């Protein structure tokens, strides 16, 4: 994290770390992996009490923060969760809570915002569609006006914690004729609504579960709209939601890679070969130096991205989140793989903890825009 955390932020980090170490150490993560749910709801509710769910919520809707910059503070939590490959819907809940609270009709969603902040409800953002990468322009799930309702038809996948979500923020497209023709619109949909079918997917991560959600003519009242379609509110909201997700994800990546680096350095000091520790071999020292560089640069760029999202300028937030994701995601997977190599054969066993981290960074790399997708987004911003 930053070298200049405030005292309050440092305390927040320590409290978070203590809680995670006590409640969901790696042994518990492995147990959850074998179980039916990726995270315990009561654990999540206690996390909400610690502040995990209210910092991206607009102040006018009851949000608060440690430092005045909610996303920077949440990045601290995300990093700690990376360090312990924690379970839980940190990114989806925070992104949805933020989206609801910043929408032009936030008042309509006050109750759900309260529940999300209390940790009694879980929400996730349903935006990806099958066989497509990050491409909001190609969203095909339709929302058709019918009287006082909208009817949703289509499929969303890669819904983070979708199997435990009580609410889904669904990004849909309005029909090609009519009001705000062909524009994006977002809806808050209860997972139990008729016509909504949630199917749990397989996942490389042991506890981060994803779901595919089918909407077969699911009917939702017009009051489910999040913001007003047309005039760019939804397009801007989708971009901002992505930026928030990426900023938190980058912090998680830095945390996971950082922890792997730490225990691998320790391994290099402890493990002897030919009468001297691995850490005394220059070829390996140089690789550790490279990894240390990547970590330092990753922290630098993740921090800058979080600050840019907090500061609110959309172009800078877009640029710096894409810079951060494109850089960190590739370095993090390279780093963890290098550390697998440095461990020798035990690095590819189930028993060793490193694969928990490799799974997390690999999943993070692929979601909320791959490095290549972010480079392309960046090229658009640079007006190439």
């Amino acid at each position, binding site marked *: 994290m*930053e*070298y*200049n955390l405030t005292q309050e932020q440092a305390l927040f980090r320590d409290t978070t770390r203590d809680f995670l170490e006590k409640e969901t150490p790696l042994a518990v993560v492995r147990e959850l992996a074998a179980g039916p749910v990726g995270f315990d709801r009561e654990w999540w509710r206690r996390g909400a009490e610690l502040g995990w769910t209210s910092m991206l919520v607009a102040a006018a809707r009851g949000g608060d923060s440690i430092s005045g910059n909610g996303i920077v503070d949440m990045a601290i939590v995300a990093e700690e969760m990376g360090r312990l490959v924690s379970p839980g819907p940190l990114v989806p809940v925070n992104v949805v809570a933020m989206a609801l609270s910043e929408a032009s009709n936030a008042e309509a969603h006050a109750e759900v915002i309260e529940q999300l902040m209390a940790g009694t409800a879980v929400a996730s953002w349903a935006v990806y569609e099958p066989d497509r990468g990050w491409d909001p322009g190609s969203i095909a799930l339709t929302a058709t006006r019918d009287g006082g309702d909208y009817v949703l038809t289509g499929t969303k996948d890669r819904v983070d914690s979708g199997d435990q979500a009580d609410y889904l923020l669904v990004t849909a497209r309005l029909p090609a004729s009519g009001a705000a023709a062909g524009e994006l619109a977002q809806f808050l949909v209860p997972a139990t609504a008729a016509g909504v079918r949630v199917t749990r997917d397989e996942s490389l991560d042991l506890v981060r579960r994803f779901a595919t959600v089918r909407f077969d003519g699911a009917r939702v009242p017009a009051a489910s709209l999040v913001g007003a379609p047309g005039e760019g509110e939804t397009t801007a909201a989708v971009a901002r939601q992505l930026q928030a997700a990426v900023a938190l994800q980058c912090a998680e990546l830095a945390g996971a890679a950082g922890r792997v680096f730490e225990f691998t*350095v320790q391994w*290099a*000091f402890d493990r002897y070969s030919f009468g*001297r*520790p691995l*850490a*005394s071999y*220059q070829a390996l*020292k*140089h690789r*550790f*130096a*490279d990894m*240390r*560089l990547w970590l*330092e*640069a990753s*922290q*630098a*760029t993740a*921090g*800058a991205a979080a600050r840019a999202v907090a500061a609110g300028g959309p172009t800078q937030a877009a*640029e*710096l989140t*894409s*810079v951060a994701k*494109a*850089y960190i995601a590739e370095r993090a997977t390279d780093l963890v793989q290098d550390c697998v190599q440095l461990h020798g054969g035990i690095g590819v066993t189930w028993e060793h903890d490193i694969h928990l981290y490799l799974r997390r960074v690999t999943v993070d790399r692929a979601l909320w825009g791959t490095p*290549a997708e*972010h*480079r*392309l*987004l*960046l*090229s658009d911003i*640079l*007006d*190439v």
Partner: protein
Amino acid sequence: MSDTEDVESFRLRAREWIAANLPRLPEPGNAPDGENRGHVDDAAWLRARELQRLLYDGGFAGICYPREYGGQGLTPAHQKAFTEETAGYEMPLLLNVPTFSICGPVLLELGTEEQKREHLPRVLSGEEVLVQFLSEPRGGSDLAGLTTRAVRDGDVFIVSGAKIWSSGAYAADYATCLVRTDWEAPKHRGLTMLLMKVHQPGVTIRRIKQLDGNEEFCEEFLDDVEVPVANVIGEVNGGWAVASRQLFHERNAVGGGSPYVSGGARAGSARRAAPVSALTELVRRTGQASDPRARELVAESHLLSRVQEQLIDRVVAGMQAQQLPPTAGAVIRLFSGVSSVRRAEISLELAGAGAVTAPAGAGDPAIGVQFLMRQASCLGGGSTEMARNIISERILGMPREFAGDRDIPFSQVRQGR
């Protein structure tokens, strides 16, 4: 210290002065890069000195140097603001490295009061240009193993040996010259740093031609050169501490983190590779602007320069907060080298055949040449291999390399061919 002018009012004052006094550059945004000097001639050095005099008289020389030695006594934030305001104007970039950012700070931190008062104001006014006499033909990375000897004779040292890779020595007035004064001490403990007048009997300077035609680097042959004892910087036989501090400044200067570099709003290692606007122009010109691969490469080049800026800010903050050791400059240095290599590769990839052959005035020959010289970014200012040693040993605490010359009299150390 009296109240320091706040950065924004300094910026506005500088902006006014710059507009009224500094010459505009002929082409927009075409600041010559202080590192990539190309063919620099005597006229360029004269111009640099004149511009520096202008800055000195205007009260904008040595922004972070103390006032009592001719500087402005301000902060890195002020210097950064001034540099930003000079974009599009001609600045004496030749003087940044090593004069202002390496040799000057060494004098400032370790020189005697007399040395500082005699030299620093002249340095800041452009009258005195400084150069480094450190590396020797027998070795650059193993700096402390140098063999240029200095023998005390009354109130002078008599110096004989050879130095190499001194950038701009032919145009310099004084050199910070590291010599061996005690051959029976172990290697680090027999060194002395001298401030040597460059153009004097016994100093023969030969320019070295690089593969890109650049002739800024020099080799110096020292034959019984006299240096007054009063020109010792630091202690006799205590030169390694001075050299270490000089290398710290060099790492900062090379990596882009020095507060003493002025101007070159696009210069410095962070932007030495083709800036994104030039790459954008290239891909449009070559019909690649809608090719996703080309777009990705342009974006990657840009993101590396962004990350470098962010890394520099972070490492500087970490060192200031004392959460990183001073040797953390090696982190900046390593990133600079590795990212420069990648960016040269990206530029070459995008330029295609136009980088290797084209009619005169067409194509992108500069990109081809930059690619040829690409390793220089991993060599100058300390190799990236040495940076990795520093990071692994001084930051990660890993065991140091075996050395064949530790703690034995230097006269007994094995030398190669």
